[in-house]
């Protein structure tokens, strides 16, 4: 019985990501367009909302090109492992007080740990293309992702310290509105580090379209490329959901089903900010990116932990 439930939740998670990716791409194209002082897709469907329904079959019908010198099994199956862990990590997000698909005792750590499988899959898929630029892009992407895991985890640690538990629903129950100003630095660090984890926004030099010709997924076409994109959008959705759940109090003024709606509204707001940041800021150079992580974000996260630790006895 529980196996069936787990399977259904898995299907639900995949559907959420697929639908989220479709809606997310549409929303991103509209937001990007407005920032660039033009309209986005407007022909197909009201406000261009059915544009993705036109794009997805195009992707599916593209010719499946596999380079001759590529490592074929890894080339074919590594993109699956890029996208899979994101879907799996969504299952521990607490949607509202009392609503969490999988309420394990180490849920928060589970959410942080599972995307690290994605890192090795990206590295392997960059290797499998067997050309120098892809490998270079893959190494840069991997170095960036494993570096930004550190401030991200430290920022979430601040909330865990206040809540006293790694269980997602415990964190939601213990959340108070004045945690937000107290852990605002942690929220900012989590937000920036999540954008960097997904190779998005100003941190997207590994996939830099103008410099490395789409970097580590240059040789992937059609649905394979789409799985990298779905991983990016799925990562954005899950990071925003988790950030809203932990730092903004999942569905805070409300509980139950209305709380889930409140959480989704907060998530859409966070996602819009992510897209806004991407289309406004110029790309960071690789060494600036790394020094920003280690010399700015990590010490700030430690400072935040000290602040929380000092305040804790009075709570």
């Amino acid at each position, binding site marked *: 019985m529980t196996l069936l439930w787990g399977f259904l939740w898995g299907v639900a998670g995949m559907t959420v990501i697929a639908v989220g990716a479709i809606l997310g791409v549409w929303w991103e194209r509209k937001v990007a367009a407005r920032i660039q002082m033009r309209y986005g897709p407007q022909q197909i469907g009201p406000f261009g909302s059915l544009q993705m329904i036109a794009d997805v079959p195009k992707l599916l019908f593209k010719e499946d090109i596999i380079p001759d010198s590529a490592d074929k099994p*890894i080339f074919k199956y590594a993109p699956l492992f890029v996208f899979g862990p994101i879907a799996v990590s969504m299952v521990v997000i607490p949607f509202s007080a009392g609503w969490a698909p999988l309420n*394990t005792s*180490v849920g928060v*750590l589970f959410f942080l*740990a599972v995307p*690290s499988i994605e890192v*090795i899959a990206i590295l*392997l898929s960059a*290797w499998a293309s067997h050309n120098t630029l892809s490998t270079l892009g893959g190494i840069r992407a991997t170095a960036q992702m494993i570096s930004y895991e550190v401030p991200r985890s430290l920022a979430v640690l601040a909330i865990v310290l206040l809540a006293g538990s*790694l269980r997602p629903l415990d964190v939601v129950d213990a959340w108070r509105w004045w945690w937000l100003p107290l852990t605002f630095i942690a929220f900012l660090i989590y937000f920036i580090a999540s954008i960097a984890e997904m190779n998005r926004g100003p941190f997207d030099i590994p996939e830099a379209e103008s410099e490395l010709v789409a970097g580590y997924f240059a040789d992937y076409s059609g649905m394979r490329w789409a799985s990298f994109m779905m991983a990016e959008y799925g990562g954005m959705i899950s990071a925003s959901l988790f950030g809203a759940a932990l730092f903004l109090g999942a569905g805070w003024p409300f509980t139950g089903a209305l709380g889930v709606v409140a959480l989704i509204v907060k998530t859409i707001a966070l996602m819009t900010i992510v897209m806004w940041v991407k289309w406004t800021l110029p790309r960071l150079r690789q060494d600036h990116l790394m020094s920003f992580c280690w010399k700015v974000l990590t010490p700030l996260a430690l400072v935040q932990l000290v602040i929380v630790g000092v305040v804790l006895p009075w709570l």
Partner: protein
Amino acid sequence: MTLTILAFALSGLLMAGGAAVVALTRDLMRMVIGLGTFLLGVAGMFLFYGQAFLATAQVFVYVGGVLVLFVFAVMVVHRSSGGRPVLESRHDIGAAVIALGVSGMVILSLQDSVGGWLPASASGGAAIATELLGGHLVVFELLGALLLAALVAVLVIVGAGERR
């Protein structure tokens, strides 16, 4: 009940399969993938024995960290080889006998300490934290010092970039 047996079987299969790939394959990247499979199997086994925190830590540290290091090392060491790096071995009946002998010794000496199926205890992170930050605080501090020493050692050994 069957779910736990399934979990045990799956984790055991991943461990054994990963180990077999590491021992027998002729391609370096396949070997690294085999190691990754083994590490995921170990994480599953930790979960089977009720150590949820340890399973998550295993995935975080090993699959997300040490395995990435392995791939980086392969990429750096075999950069000039161009094609796919080939892994050779000196398959040897003597080595197999020694390995089997050691396994047998371990099994024979420990076979009285194990009972039936097991385990009921499930512990999250809280119990481990109470132990590490309570009675065994010195161990915790020493582990931190060890990690710091390893970090500094790696930086010193690898140095600041290549000498051309």
